[in-house]
């Protein structure tokens, strides 16, 4: 018999998400994803000084303020006609990269790992590592006091990693990862002042000049992190992926085969070359990566709490008018579609686009990054198998995130070498606010493709819009009835015990959803802004 299982709150993500699944005969038959919190960030920017945009939009999300601040800076650079100095471009890459590192580590260890590792297995640890023994002592103390919060309660399942040695090592890495991600934020604050909510990028460039000493301070932390990513993070992913019980997750959790990347990390001052390339993939055609064109983005609100008038619009002409009474609506998220299709964005989309361009020879062999790394890790057979099957599920999503983290951390060392102390960091044109202008800033954030748009009139912000990654991934159904990527990914997942739908949250969390980003829209009626859009 079919039954609806409601999971609210979905914890260990950013923001407020509710998931409903229909379970029949132990398998998910249907799924609905709902964003359940609304603020309205863009509205307060109207009539403000354009320079405020970066400080305000980075508060859209406290996990990745960097990506909003960076998109906002590129957006304003574009509106002011800035020529970005190389130092500024490199420092922006370095700090955005540092945030990818902190965000990816946080995601795997602190948001996802408790779905796989049995913390109580630590009680059976019999090894001699002093750190792990101390950890065992603490967990034993908590167990005795019957106070294992926040690690218990949890969904029960018989497939948690429970080998005491392996589980204890992973729990030890959970603790180490707290330090690693903290270090990534320290590294970032060298150039950007503080995290979360940083101050170091401004229209026209950045605020801190590279010096021998701040480069050295950055590099020493980066070296530690690179070692940790190579020897702990990437290895732990391989350990978890090697657990026989999880082998179904290589393909289970596939989002439907469409992937989109705007591209990110500029390699030249015009931004025409990117370290992570742009492109999109349809129906799992990994080796046939297509050229991205932003005009193909249309948003549907058939099942979102917005009026019918917001339906079917392109971002440049978008509109957002909330309607909490609307029939058939179940989310504050809109449903953006590319060529009418739902698209997964994020590390998996970026890595598949990169892999596709490398495999098809569009990126010459001497410039390839991912394919050689996959070979070096001995993953080529597995990857070929998945490409042939045309399905990429929960585990590939985690693995791609880790590989991307490694590629970026390695490249950051190269960018550090390219910094030139004493050379400009700022184009003063950034201070020259034109009376009327428009701008666009497209970047990649840890969770995927992000765009900011600005219209300046009378030297003030007339309109400011953001299109964010999680709206793509966690979107509800569109007007054709197509499910969003997360909804599709849940279909067919085994849920043997509806009281403990562990596989559902494993799958949702593999997308690293950020709901605060996804719902930041404004109300046109109340603030008088007529044209508004959210995704």
């Amino acid at each position: 018999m079919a039954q609806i299982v409601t999971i609210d709150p979905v914890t260990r993500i950013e923001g407020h998400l509710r998931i409903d699944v229909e379970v029949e005969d132990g398998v998910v038959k249907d799924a609905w994803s709902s964003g359940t919190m609304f603020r309205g960030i863009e509205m307060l920017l109207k009539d403000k000084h354009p320079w405020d945009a970066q400080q305000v939009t980075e508060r859209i999300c406290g996990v990745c303020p960097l990506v909003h601040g960076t998109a906002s800076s590129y957006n304003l650079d574009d509106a002011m006609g800035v020529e970005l100095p190389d130092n500024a471009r490199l420092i922006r890459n370095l700090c955005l990269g540092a945030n990818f590192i902190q965000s990816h580590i946080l995601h795997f260890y602190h948001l996802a790992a408790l779905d796989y590792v049995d913390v109580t297995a630590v009680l059976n640890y019999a090894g001699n590592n002093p750190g792990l023994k101390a950890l065992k002592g603490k967990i034993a103390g908590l167990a005795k006091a019957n106070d294992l919060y926040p690690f218990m309660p949890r969904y029960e399942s018989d497939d948690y990693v429970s080998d005491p040695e392996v589980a204890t090592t992973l729990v030890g890495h959970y603790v180490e990862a707290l330090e690693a991600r903290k270090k990534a934020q320290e590294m970032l604050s060298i150039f950007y002042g503080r995290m979360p909510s940083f101050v170091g990028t401004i229209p026209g460039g950045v605020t801190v000049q590279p010096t021998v000493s701040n480069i050295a301070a950055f590099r020493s932390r980066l070296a530690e992190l690179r070692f940790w990513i190579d020897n702990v993070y990437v290895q732990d992913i391989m350990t978890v992926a090697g657990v026989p019980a999880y082998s179904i997750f290589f393909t289970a959790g596939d989002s439907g085969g469409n992937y989109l990347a705007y591209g990110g990390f500029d390699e030249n001052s015009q931004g025409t070359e990117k370290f992570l390339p742009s492109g999109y993939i349809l129906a799992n055609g990994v080796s046939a990566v297509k050229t991205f064109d932003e005009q193909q983005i249309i948003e549907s609100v058939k099942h979102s709490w917005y009026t019918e008038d917001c339906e079917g619009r392109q971002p440049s002409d978008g509109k957002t008018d909330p309607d909490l009474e609307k029939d058939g609506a179940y989310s504050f998220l809109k449903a953006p579609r590319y060529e009418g299709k739902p698209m997964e964005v994020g590390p998996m989309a970026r890595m598949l686009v990169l892999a596709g361009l490398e495999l098809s020879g569009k990126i010459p062999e001497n410039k390839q990054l991912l394919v050689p790394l996959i070979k070096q890790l001995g993953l080529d057979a597995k990857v070929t198998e998945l490409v042939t099957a045309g399905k990429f599920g929960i585990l590939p999503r985690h693995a791609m995130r880790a590989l991307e983290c490694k590629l970026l951390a390695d490249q950051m060392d190269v960018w550090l070498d390219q910094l030139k102390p004493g050379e400009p960091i700022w184009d003063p044109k950034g201070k020259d606010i034109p009376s009327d202008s428009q701008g666009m800033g497209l970047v990649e954030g840890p969770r995927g493709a992000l765009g900011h748009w600005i219209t300046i009139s009378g030297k003030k912000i007339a309109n400011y819009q953001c299109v964010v990654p999680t709206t793509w991934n966690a979107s509800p159904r569109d007007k054709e009835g197509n499910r969003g990527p997360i909804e599709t990914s849940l279909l067919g997942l085994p849920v043997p015990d509806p009281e403990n739908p562990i596989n559902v949250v494993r799958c949702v969390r593999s997308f690293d959803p950020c709901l605060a980003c996804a719902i930041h829209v404004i109300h046109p009626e109340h603030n008088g802004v007529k044209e508004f859009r959210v995704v």
Partner: protein
Amino acid sequence: MEEKGVTRRQFIKYAGATAALLGLSQALVPEIARALEEMAASGKPPVLWIQGQNCTGCSVSFLNTNYPDAAEVVLDKLSVRYQPTVMAAAGYQAFGVIEDTAKELAGKYVLVVEGPIPTAEGGEFCTFGLEEGTKDLLGNKVPKDKPIEVWMEQLVPGAAAVIALGNCASFGGIPAANAEVTGTTAVLDVVKKIDKDKPVINVSGCPSHPDWFIGTVLYYLLNGKVPELDRYNRPTMFFGKLIHENCERRASFDAGLFLEDWNDNNPDMKLCLFKMGCKGPVTYADCPTRRWNSAVNWCVGANAPCHGCAEPAFYKDLSPLYEPLPDINFMGINNAETLGWIAAGATAAGIVGHYLYKQLGKKAPEGGEE
């Protein structure tokens, strides 16, 4: 010994770190250690940490804590029962923990609220967990969402104290600029309606500094009372001093050496950011001495102005963020009250006077505010 959880030696270590965090004399370490030990023996104090219209920045900032570090807080110090960003449980198990704690430990738990409370449209702009009743989901009957406003009504009466975490929970912050639509309300105002005597501590900052939050919690637990608060309910031990008075660039300000081009910022010059919009002269927080991210840097340290993120006036009434203060304060000096800095207004007036006199090459008048 180390297999038995927290050792005596660790208590001494924690006590030392706690004293440093709270700015107390190291002579008090043995006493703090004893208090910590007693606290541990009677079970870790329960914490319920719920999220309203937040961005999770304060949760992420909390993870940057050093003394004690995040693992120590969670394993040794507090019983963090509900914290949606880190807890294992989801769905009914997760909100079931809140319900159980509220019932079993009434009067004992600390309620931390990250983000303000939207009260318009029956609270539907922010919900988590489920309540009695059903709603329709494309033809299916499913359980109803529970507004955070309803959670507040349920949890405030039994809370020992309420901590509003971050500028937006404390004062409405950025979401309050859209209050006409969502009814964004500061935590203090929501609590007052439920129980006007309930202690509420505003740990401001956008986001809050981990030391400000953990220091406040430790102070409360060690002393069994709320720390001294300023008129905005912020602990004076962290928000008692003007940034401008303690800024490492104050000498440049006094000498009239201002940063005007970011390419011109010879790292040794330490030029004052006043002309680039620094709000340090009207902001009360200990950032210049405490600094951020393991004391690696802070806003002014990165050649960027302080944006005043700890103030009730942030963001709206401190905009434009990159224009010098006179633009708002000099013109708007009469409405300093509406700006939310009554006393700071006077100080700012003095500063503005000082600044203009420097510009004109004159001496500041005797007895001026400074």
